[in-house]
């Protein structure tokens, strides 16, 4: 019996109970639809975060105080004050460091900023002149912090566009005006151009001041929050990581890298961490969706079992007329695969459609990976085979005598 005929026969059988068939398919539609929508959502947010991190600057290494938690050994709790400006200068001047192009020490903390009657709470960055080139900051107007500003503790500030919005209602004609940070007045010398991002990763909601001014006059600290390093090329990232690591270890008089009181992360490391987090998130969502798919599959199995019972006499007749086990199995498997495949097809349409609507509402990028669509087809077909197998076997193993007598 050829497969084409089996498909037509199966389709006719399914068309008899339209409502029942529809409800069974609905389970698969919901399952596949939610898998597609949620996986796409996860992938899209992962991509968005990745592109943001990438925009922070290439060849970038970040030295942060505090030890890594790997190996279960954590540095002393007070270890977050271990990085100093001298460390940064040593990295810059050491003859052993051949792979680092620029060094940018940073001290940052939150602070209250007032301009006239407006005020805002934002992140204050104490930086040196080369921060702009290391972190790829461009200016919309004015100029950035200079080496002279750092040398002479000037009270100048460069504002991020979000801060300008908050304090001056977006009026960018403010170069030369004064703002007050922690009660001290600073002259605005520049405004950075927007880099985008939101929430935790907002790169526009910040104010830059000279590092020395931030350390001595604003916050009264001697340590750094981080040191940004620009490697000479992306090929020497690991060497740069090692060179800087050993220099800092010897400066801090630490013998074993495992007990280091600092961490050096490349953009790739940060990317990996973020990918891991959003990957877990995606996996969690997909897991929930997969459960609904499983429930849908059980629905298919249930319907197929009912169908087999209803059609006991027909199965008996087919066997009496010479149908072999394989043919009966094929017929019922094809029926369940038609159910799940149709469900998968409609589910993909709904899932992609739902995700498209989401991207329109959340104004994020609409990307559907072809592989997830193919996977959805494969999974829905697989579910048809897996959950159709038992009912099909049951049908094929009916005894023709019993089946023909069945009322």
């Amino acid at each position, binding site marked *: 019996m050829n497969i084409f005929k089996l498909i037509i026969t199966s389709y006719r059988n399914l068309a008899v109970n339209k409502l029942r068939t529809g409800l069974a398919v609905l389970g698969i539609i919901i399952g596949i639809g939610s898998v597609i929508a949620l996986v796409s959502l996860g992938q899209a947010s992962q991509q968005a975060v990745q592109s943001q991190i990438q925009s922070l600057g290439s060849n970038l290494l970040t030295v942060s105080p505090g030890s890594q938690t790997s190996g279960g050994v954590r540095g002393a709790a007070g270890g977050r004050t271990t990085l100093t400006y001298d460390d940064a200068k040593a990295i810059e001047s050491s003859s052993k460091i051949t792979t680092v192009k620029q060094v940018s020490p940073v001290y940052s903390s939150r602070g209250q900023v007032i301009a006239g009657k407006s005020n805002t709470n934002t992140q204050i960055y104490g930086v040196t002149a080369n921060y702009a080139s290391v972190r790829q900051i461009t200016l919309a107007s004015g100029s950035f912090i200079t080496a002279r500003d750092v040398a002479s503790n000037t009270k100048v500030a460069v504002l991020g566009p979000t801060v300008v919005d908050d304090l001056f209602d977006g009026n960018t004609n403010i170069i030369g005006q004064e703002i007050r940070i922690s009660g001290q007045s600073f002259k605005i010398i520049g405004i950075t151009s927007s880099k985008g991002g939101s929430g935790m990763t907002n790169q526009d909601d910040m104010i830059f001041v000279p590092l020395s001014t931030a350390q001595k006059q604003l916050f009264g600290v001697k340590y750094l929050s981080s040191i940004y390093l620009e490697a000479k090329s992306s090929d020497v990232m690991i060497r740069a990581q090692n060179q800087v690591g050993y220099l800092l270890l010897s400066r801090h008089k630490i013998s074993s890298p495992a007990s280091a009181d600092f961490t050096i992360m490349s953009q790739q490391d940060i990317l990996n961490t973020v990918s891991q987090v959003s990957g877990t998130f995606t996996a969690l969502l997909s897991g929930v969706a997969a459960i609904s798919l499983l429930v849908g599959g059980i629905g298919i199995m249930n319907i197929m079992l009912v169908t087999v019972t209803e059609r006991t006499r027909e199965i008996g007749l087919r066997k009496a007329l*010479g149908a072999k086990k394989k043919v009966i199995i094929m017929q019922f498997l094809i029926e369940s695969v038609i159910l799940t495949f149709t469900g998968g097809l409609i589910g993909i349409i709904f899932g992609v459609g739902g995700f498209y609507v989401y991207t329109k509402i959340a104004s994020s990028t609409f990307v559907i990976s072809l592989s997830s669509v193919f996977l959805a087809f494969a999974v829905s077909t697989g579910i048809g085979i897996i959950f159709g197998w038992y009912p099909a076997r049951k049908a094929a193993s009916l005894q023709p005598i019993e089946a023909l007598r069945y009322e």
Partner: protein
Amino acid sequence: METVALSDISLTIYKGEFVAIMGPSGSGKSTLMHILGALDQPTSGKYILDGETVEKLTEDELADIRNRKIGFVFQAYNLLPRTTALDNVMLPMSYAGVSDQEQKDRALRFLELVGLQDRVHHSSNQLSGGQQQRVAIARALVMDPAILLADEATGNISSAQADEIMGIFQKLNDKGHTIIMITHEPDIAHFAKRIIYIKDGKIGEDILNKEQKKI
């Protein structure tokens, strides 16, 4: 304890015979029909059908024997619902791997033989009981089986239609088809040339029917 349905049955049916097997319910005639129809196998003993020993076969091998050697006509017709007469008749051939065109040609020929040439595309639920049974006979004949096995084939239809069916059987028998008919109605049994009575699992009487009714 085992229930013995049939014992000590020794029976030969030759090519071209028209046999009626009679007996009250519980006599074992259904079991005999199941064995003759290769739907079941005897616990001991031999059944040789058209030169092939039907013994210790797998389910699929039995299915193959039924497909090639036996044409079934059931009491309840057992046509596929919502399926045309033509498709119903083509069904056994599809399991035998006959080409589509030949399936159609043969099905049309046998539907004409049972007088349903103008009902070919009617679906089974649009046909009367007698017509459905004629479709079933056409279906039983398309594989050119060694025996046509009718199990209470006239049990569900009116006596006028039953006579029509018997007429078809006699016509087929005249052409050389071997027909075995299970029935509990003496009227129907008298259309056969030979009548075998089964009682308590044994052959009671095996007589040549000298007063065969003719249509």
